[in-house]
């Protein structure tokens, strides 16, 4: 996978590039701010852009804005946004607005396999949502009725689905067979009243939409 990295701290940028290259990806561009990032994406049309939220000049949300621009102008370039802290609401909107988008806390990188898995998923048109954001979606719910009917295991699975993981990913994570995971997912979707193709990435969107809707309602 060809990757462009945007991160203003040089050491961190090189570290990220090293990790990705170690995993066999090709880092075609390194940017220190949003403008260079957009130019590089324009030039190389990479499959993935890894973007820091805060970058010069204002250290505000340049990365998020650049991510939105990339998704709009270069639909074939997926974006993985890295942040130092959680910014729930508009991130959830971004993730659930379609595939090819990921949002992770920066230190998830240290769990290297997980990070690389998320990067590949996103590059393939899937999504990745930080577990802490998902936990926030669970915690903010006011009616616990529907979720209360889930078993603890099912809830765990639901969280991983919301994070954007595939059944294979979930099975690896929970030390279950893929078959068992599939059963859990069917049961969950039935209890929540969601009828969708269990294999499709769109189930993530549906789950997120469900969690957000009940969160707001």
């Amino acid at each position, binding site marked *: 996978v060809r990757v462009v990295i945007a991160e203003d*701290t040089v*050491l*961190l940028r090189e*570290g*990220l590039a*090293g*990790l990705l290259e*170690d995993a066999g990806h090709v880092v075609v561009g390194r940017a220190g701010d949003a403008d260079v990032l957009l130019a590089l994406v324009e030039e190389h049309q990479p499959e993935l852009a890894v973007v820091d939220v*805060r970058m010069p000049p204002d*250290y*505000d949300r340049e990365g998020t804005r650049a991510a939105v621009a990339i998704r709009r102008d270069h639909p074939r370039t997926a974006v993985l946004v890295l942040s*130092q*802290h*959680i*910014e*729930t*609401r*508009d991130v959830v909107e971004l993730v659930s607005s379609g595939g090819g988008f990921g949002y992770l806390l*920066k*230190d998830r*990188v*240290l769990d*290297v396999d997980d990070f690389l898995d998320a990067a590949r998923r996103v590059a393939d048109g899937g999504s990745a949502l930080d577990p802490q954001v998902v936990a*926030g979606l669970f*915690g*903010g719910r*006011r009616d616990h009725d529907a979720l209360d009917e889930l078993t603890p295991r099912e809830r765990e699975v639901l969280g991983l689905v919301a994070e954007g993981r595939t059944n294979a990913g979930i099975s690896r994570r929970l030390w279950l067979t893929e078959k068992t995971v599939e059963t859990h997912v069917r049961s969950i979707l039935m209890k929540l009243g969601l009828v969708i193709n269990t294999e499709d990435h769109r189930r993530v969107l549906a789950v997120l939409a469900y969690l957000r809707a009940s969160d707001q309602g």
Partner: protein
Amino acid sequence: MRRYARSLAWLTAAAVVVAAVAEVVVRAVAQSRGIRHSFAPEWELFYLAGVLAPAVVGLGVALRRPGNRVAWILLFGSLFVAVVMAAVAIAGLALHHDRNSVAGRWAALVSQEWPCFFAWPLALAFLFPDGRLPSPRWRLPAAFAAVSTGGMVLLLFFGSRDLTGGFGHATSPLPWVIGEGVGTALFWPCFVGFLVSLISGAACVRARYRRGSEDVRRQVLWLAYGVLLLPIWFGATALWGLVVGDSGEGGQALLMVVQAWLAVAVAVAVSRHGLYQIDRLISRTVAFLVLTALLAATYAAGVTLAGLAAGRGSAAAAALATAIAALAFGPLRRRVQTAVDRRFARARFEAVALIGGFVDDVHNARAEPEDVGAALAVALGDPTAEVVFRLPETTGYADREGRLLPGLPDDGRVHRPVLLGERELGVLLHDPAVERNPDLLRAVLAAAAVAIELARLRVELRLQLAAVESSRARIAQAGYEERRRLERDLHDGAQQRLVTLGIVLRRLQRSLPRQAQVLVPALDAAVDEVSGAINDLRTIAAGVRPPRLDQGLAAALTDLARGATVPVELHATPERAPPDVEVTAYFVACEALTNAIKHASSSHVEMHSARDDGVLRLVIADDGVGGARPSGGGLTGLADRVAAQGGTLKIVSAPGAGTRIAVELPCVS
């Protein structure tokens, strides 16, 4: 022309001095020869003052405004008086030695001209202060006065063969005279005309006063006071003549004093009429005269009544009458002065009464002391009048609203410091016209001083409170800025470095050769430590200042509610407030929520935020045990934070009934 006028003025003044010196010398000679005269040496001073004062004033006016007839009236008037007075002295000396001395007889003739004392004051009455009649209508009375006075002068000169005076008797040196019978027949109509002219002159002064501008009025008042003294002199000499038999030296001296006063009055009126308060002098004089008359009447009545009881001429009657007069003095004096003030200084009387009423209103809380400026504007009749208040320990002033003034306005208004003792309370800004009545100004300011001081103190207090509030807000603001910077530093500095360190460790771990795989668990542990440190930092940063606040209070409260261990029902307005207000509200919510969960064992919390009327309202209510003490450490801290933003915090927490914290924060940015 002007040059000649000056020369003439100097010449006339010199002539007056020569005549005056002649009079003094001749009189001294006569004195040394033992010739008794109506004028004793000790009265010479009055004589000199009466003669020289008009000449000096006349000269001064003539040099500055040679076109003004007032100058020439004074110069020639004093020359006339000086010549007549010198003639009196010469006649006395010359005729004493020789009844038929030619010089003595001429001097005796000239000495007959007593109207000299009244001619120039009369002319002044018609022509003062600008040398013109007030209106053409006064031409006839003025001509009448000139004819009757002039006729009198001529008749005194040519009318009679027999001359009488202090020198005794003499015959006129003129070869021809009109003669006793015809002269007298003509003299009396002239004399009556002269008396009528005195009255019409007074009427002219009055007319000028009534129609004149404020300046003219003041000038005329000075003259009027001098003119007032003339009838007093008439009355006094007449009374003295009736009682003692002869007006004598005292009467003469008094007349000279009146003359001198008239000259001084003209001088002041022409140059510095605004400086002295003639109306006050007039009112005091009138009050004194009226009081004297009343006391005399009281005394007379007392003597008569007591005399009926105790016998005529008894000492007891006189003592009783004196006692009655003395008892009556105090109350009488006050009444008379008030009445006279009301009549002669009405403006001041009313103005002071008005300010007195205002001060009463302030005492009874019917008026704000800060309105003292408006009250003064009414009292002084100057709508532009305004009071600004002095701020101690600065050089500045503040207006009635407590706004600091960059400086006193330079708009043509006079800046008059208002003092209480040595202390400056403020400055009265007023129209320059008000200065024409400094007495009124002084009286009104004295009456208003208490109100001004009260207003000044209140303005000062307000300003100090505002200063404290704004400094508190600045400190709070600085605190928030600092938190924001700290939060940034933690995220973008330390945390970033830790992540980098973790990545380096991971890459190291992955590139380890097979024989070094024993290091893997150690590196895992190291990375776990790094992750733990990052999480710690994130928690600290969130405590310093939640980054979610960047997206608004509602977003931050949503996060807060999600993170809580009990269900939180949140209704947050999406409207934004100024950043420092949102931060304050957020920390209040944090603290209240922590209290609800930790101390109150609540199972349900409700949070509402709303914005209306420029105020952010936040209510946090729980169903816990209640009984929270507002003085508790956490709650006091909350109250301080809210107060620093100029807001209010209310806590209702009855035991067993949950706790409700309501905050209102003004959203002025």
